[in-house]
């Protein structure tokens, strides 16, 4: 069962955010930063919030923090548009608006007792970090936990120190790959799909969780299928323009789905027929 907003549902007031303050800002890459807020609420890994920058507007941002930590909300944001640039300018003590959490998250309950293979591209790791936190906190509930992370270059990797920490654990597999790298880079170069044949998981007993650019996700799914994983065991997180986040504005339609309410996480067989259609 998904958790609905802490703000009363069944109300247009759901479009009115509550205010929160920034407690810390960390730079992840040249255009990406992670921001902590002074308020928290229960959320499921994969859910998102609408963040409001005064006078600029709202954007849907995945929650990238620990679902067990209800003292703060953590978001990792790439500064690419008018609103995200305004969010980037905020400093500790500054105020913003937040409402949520929204959407269907990753299938943590369904994955219980199975191997989890996480494949992330670029900032796609942000909505998957709560999965890793949750799985490591409840380590005995899951089989193998594997993270395959691809970025454009070593400088474009987010959560770098945590990647090192996770890689140092004996109860988790981590592989990273970049599209291009300087000669000092000593591990994989190429696309993230090439890592899939290199890791161990049991295809009949695995749940795959994938987030990244659409084209990446399609090729990742194809590679998983080559390994014998069926579509009903693969989950992807989709993205479209979003204004209301509560299924009323129409913007996030993806074929028959409203990404804000039916997603953003979808079992792959549900979106298989539409994901490859141009400009859908």
């Amino acid at each position, binding site marked *: 069962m998904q958790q609905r907003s802490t703000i009363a549902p069944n109300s247009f007031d759901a479009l009115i955010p509550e205010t929160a303050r920034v407690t810390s800002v960390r730079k992840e890459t040249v255009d990406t930063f992670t921001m902590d807020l002074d308020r928290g609420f229960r959320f499921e890994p994969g859910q998102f919030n609408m963040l409001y920058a*005064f006078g600029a507007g709202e954007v849907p941002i995945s929650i990238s923090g620990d679902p067990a930590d209800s003292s703060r909300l953590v978001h990792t944001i790439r500064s690419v548009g008018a609103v995200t640039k305004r969010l980037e300018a905020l400093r500790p003590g500054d105020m913003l608006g937040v409402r949520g959490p929204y959407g269907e998250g990753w299938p943590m309950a369904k994955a219980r007792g199975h191997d989890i293979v996480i494949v992330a591209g670029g900032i796609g790791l942000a909505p998957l970090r709560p999965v890793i936190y949750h799985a490591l906190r409840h380590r005995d509930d899951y089989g193998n936990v594997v993270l395959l992370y691809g970025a454009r270059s070593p400088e474009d990797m987010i959560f770098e120190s945590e990647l090192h920490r996770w890689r140092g654990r004996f109860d988790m597999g981590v592989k990273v790959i970049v599209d291009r790298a300087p000669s000092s880079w000593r591990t994989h170069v190429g696309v993230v799909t090439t890592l899939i044949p290199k890791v161990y998981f049991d295809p009949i007993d695995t749940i795959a969780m994938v987030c990244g650019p659409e084209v990446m996700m399609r090729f990742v799914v194809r590679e998983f299928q080559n390994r014998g994983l069926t579509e009903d065991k693969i989950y992807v997180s989709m993205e479209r323009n979003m204004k209301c986040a509560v299924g009323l504005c129409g913007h996030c339609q993806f*074929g028959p789905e409203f990404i804000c309410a039916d997603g953003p996480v979808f079992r792959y067989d549900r979106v298989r027929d539409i994901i490859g259609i141009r400009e859908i």
Partner: protein
Amino acid sequence: MTEVSISGKVILGLEGLGKIVSNLRREGYSVIAPVFEAGVMKLAEIESADDLPRGVRDQQEKGTYRAEQIEGERDLFKNNVSCFSYKSFLHDPHLCVFKAKKDENGFTIEKPEREEKRFAFFGIRSCDLTAMSKLDDVLLQGDYVDSAYDDRRKPVMNIAVNCTTSADTCFCASMNSGPRARANFDLALTEIIDDERHVFLCEVGSDEGAKLLCGVPFEDAPDEDDRAADVLIVAAAKMQMRSIDTSGIAELLQRVQTSHRFEEIAERCLACANCTMVCPTCFCTNIFDVTDLTGDNAERVRHWDSCFTLSYSQLHGGSVRQSVSARYRQFITHKLGTWHDQFGGIGCVGCGRCIAWCPTGIDITEEMAVFRQLAAP
């Protein structure tokens, strides 16, 4: 005066219509009806039944709307759908969501007061009534309710009119949404004019509707009048030249999504969004911030939006639906196809406004027929 029960039918005259309008106004309703202004039938508040225009004839075709008032004609309703639909009254084209004001601590958010309004739709046609129930499905039946719509929708009184004529653009009969009002009305009128009489067969649809007849002079409807009304409504249905075959339509549209036909349509489509603005079921909205010159006051406003605009599908890196063909595909596949998955049923009621108000005359019924042919094995 005897009380009329639900689905009871009575005959009343022009005086009776006048009394219904004044009863509504006494109850605090703004009575919205089609009025003839600047060459079109538009929806506006009336003060009495005398404001209802007589003898207006409209002609609606692909990319064409013409209306004129015929001198000496007595009829009130022998015309078709107004240019805009009733959605403007229930689903505000422009709405303030909240106001934010900067202060020394950051900013504060305040919810704006909204004036209470009670609308009575006098003369609403069956297609528009059906459209209202479709908007209800979208805005009231999900996990979240659009309370701005709910506030306006709850007190609505519908005094429906059964159509006794059809425009060339009408295709409600094939969409099972007209020309007879079947549900969702408080009163439904059928205008009957012959040499001796100008009367209205009035069907009661709700207790509130029955109460509106208080003080209205009426007689029980004789079977002949009931039959006469039927003949007129059936004739209106038979006049319709357009139709959409809705059998298996959602699945059919899914099959043609990559058809080149969309590119051919896009050569004619201006992406002007007229069709979605006049559509009585299109519900999409955009929400954005407007600030004043000081930068201290921001207002978050909600506007009607359209899937035909480039910004509708804006993501980092550009819009998802760059081409007009992809935007037309979104429009038609949603309206006639994926609406089934989302809300049950079809999103179109056959009012024909999108055909009349398309500046290049793109016809949804014609395009649907082409897609059916293309999908045929």
